[in-house]
């Protein structure tokens, strides 16, 4: 796997073109929520269905970006990023279900015959603490898991299998009703966020803009990191960790930093995903979702920052289209995509574009 392609793509294809394309896509994405505000009968009106769909895909793009930071740059293939995404979602879900329940208990607690909130639910009625939880929950889990994992120097595939076992354990835990997160149903039936009605056009547009801002912010952060010395050390960690140690760098600190950062980004994406989609439940943590995220990054092109966004957009766009047009053949298409990308597109779509760009 050679050097961070993001920079070479930009240099090769000429900075003006990538910026041009980037600006174009950004303009379209900004226009969407504004068009949504138009009255329904106006021909340019963008329906709530499309807005939530694109919003959902943007959240998945942030997850793909976060996964690319750890996999493309530091060589850590995590098959458990769905867990961090879901933890962020659950933190926001707790706040939303407290909002929907007013001062009473959230609906699902009635059949568990709980009369008062468990300790971890305290404070979730105010938005700021919920935001802290969105960052703290995935961040702390990543810190603890990462500290142990990187201290013991487990490598490559072992690390991936451990992360898969972690997200599987998380799913089982959240499926239990006694854990107090709504068991199999999770949280749904949200009504208000920060006092605004969650189904109002204004709220939907604001949520969309927030997701877009988070995406652009994390992209900028990614570029900054890739260009800094930190990014180069990360690439060195991926390629020759021993050599790096003998140059006096402690790779554990670097891996832990990027691992926790990536988990927090996933948590934030999850927090923005839930109010737009309207439901969060343990199946988000299933190992299948996390592996699908890995294919977005692989399809887009590891180690490039734009690649995974393209990958996430393409795969999820196909998923929405396939499950409507050819419901039975979607899994064939996804399976073929997995095999095709790993065999014929090792550097992903961006790699393809770069090669075409060079000819």
């Amino acid at each position, binding site marked *: 796997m050679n050097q961070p392609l993001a920079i070479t793509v930009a240099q090769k294809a000429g900075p003006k*073109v990538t910026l041009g394309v980037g600006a174009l896509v950004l303009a379209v994405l900004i226009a969407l929520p504004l068009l949504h505000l138009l009255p329904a009968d106006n021909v340019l009106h963008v329906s709530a269905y499309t807005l939530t769909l694109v919003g959902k895909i943007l959240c998945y793009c942030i997850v793909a970006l976060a996964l690319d930071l750890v996999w493309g740059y530091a060589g850590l293939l995590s098959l458990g990023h769905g867990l961090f995404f879901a933890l962020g979602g659950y933190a926001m879900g707790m706040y939303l279900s407290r909002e929907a329940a007013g001062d009473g208990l959230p609906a699902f607690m009635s059949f568990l015959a709980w009369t008062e909130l468990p300790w971890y639910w305290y404070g979730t009625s105010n938005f700021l603490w919920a935001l802290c939880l969105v960052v703290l929950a995935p961040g702390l889990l990543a810190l603890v898991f990462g500290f142990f994992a990187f201290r013991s120097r487990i490598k490559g595939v072992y690390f991936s299998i451990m992360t898969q076992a972690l997200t599987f354990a998380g799913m089982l835990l959240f*499926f239990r009703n006694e854990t107090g997160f709504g068991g199999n*149903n999770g949280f749904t039936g949200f009504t208000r966020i920060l006092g605004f009605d969650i189904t109002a056009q204004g709220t939907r547009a604001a949520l969309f803009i927030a997701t877009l801002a988070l995406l652009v912010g994390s992209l900028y952060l990614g570029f900054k990191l890739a260009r800094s010395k930190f990014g180069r050390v990360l690439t060195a960690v991926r390629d020759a960790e021993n050599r790096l140690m003998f140059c006096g760098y402690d790779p554990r600190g670097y891996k832990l930093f990027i691992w926790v950062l990536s988990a927090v980004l996933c948590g934030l994406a999850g927090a923005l995903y839930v109010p737009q989609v309207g439901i969060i439940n343990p199946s988000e943590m299933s190992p299948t979702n996390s592996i699908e995220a890995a294919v977005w990054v692989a399809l887009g092109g590891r180690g490039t920052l734009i690649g995974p966004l393209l990958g996430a957009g393409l795969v999820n766009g196909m998923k*929405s289209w396939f499950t409507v047009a050819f419901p039975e053949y979607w899994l064939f298409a996804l399976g073929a995509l997995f095999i095709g990308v790993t065999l014929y597109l090792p550097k992903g*779509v961006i790699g393809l*574009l770069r090669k075409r760009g060079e000819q």
Partner: protein
Amino acid sequence: MKRRPLLKSTLAASALLLSGLFPFTVQAAETIKVGILHSLSGTMAISETSLKDMALMTIDEINAKGGVLGKQLEPVVVDPASNWPLFAERARQLLSQDKVDVTFGCWTSVSRKSVLPVYEELNGLLFYPVQYEGEELSPNVFYTGAAPNQQAIPAVEYLMSEDGGAAKRYFLLGTDYVYPRTTNKILRAFLHSKGVADKDIQEVYTPFGHSDYQTIVANIKKFSAGGKTAVISTVNGDSNVPFYKELANQGIEATDIPVVAFSVGEEELRGIDTKPLVGQLAAWNYFQSVENPVNSAFVAKWKAYAKAKNLPGADKAVTNDPMEATYVGINMWAQAVEKAGSTDVDKVRDAMAGQTFAAPSGYTLTMDATNHHLHKPVMIGEVQEDGQFEVVWQTEGPLRAQPWSPYIEGNDKKPDYAVKSN
């Protein structure tokens, strides 16, 4: 020259991305759009595929008789793939993109809960064909499956009766999700009202896809040593096979410890070797083995349809309670539209009240005037060798549904008519 190919391919890529989002459907003027929202892949495909096929058969039947209000019914089938957020997305697409007038769909409670906000927001109409835990009454949903008082409670009454084995102790075994939790909560309160002490009730939950029931069966045996025991099983469809196999292999017969199940129907029995299950019980509002002219016609029609469309396993096609509920639901909706003279949701909702239909279960089912539930008869069936059920007990006539179970405190204040949940 170099730059243009790059520009073209990136634009092409984003075009594909955006085109995937606006599925354009040509608006055919003269048909009534009917949405079918059942999982055709993923874990729930096992139960929901047959409901989709039953819905299509009923629609063909109605179209053959001239459709509704002179218009043909056009089914719109989508696959939410047992993925709950996808249910919500597909529901929104059916209502806002395809503009369907009614939707028949969902199976698990979580899929219903995830689409409920969408139907209430866009004032759509959903028919839910599966028995469920109650505690919900939305103006946009008609529940053609059984409420707890139309399935769980009569089953326990039968177990308490002399014929049912006069059980003294009850082992409530279920999969850990909201339907078993709520049903067991109602049953525990009901058992207390019948004087059964807490030490004679044991509640055990297993995770989804649990396949090793050795410890659970050992627990049941230990528990049953304390007195005549009955097991009330709300185990989810898939996990029933390992449970019953382990029960039989450990030498427990229905005569020593009867097991009544609420989610084992003819469809699930197709996948199980029924020899060790003979004598085990199931409670439903309909069994395929029920003998009456309406049912024999219904079963014959279904078998012919399965063979004609050569559905997988068509030779062993069976009908079960949710399929009957789907059949009744679609016919009642058609009658309501004819009565209301339009497919507008509010008009149809009012027209639905009091609708009656001669159902394959041998009774005429009536839609309750206010609480959106069907009056349904309850039957207890015993598993036979051929994978069918033999009805050993049934209520005299249809029972009125109680969505707000009296056995959960605070329910008496809940209104008996539909009100929006938020």
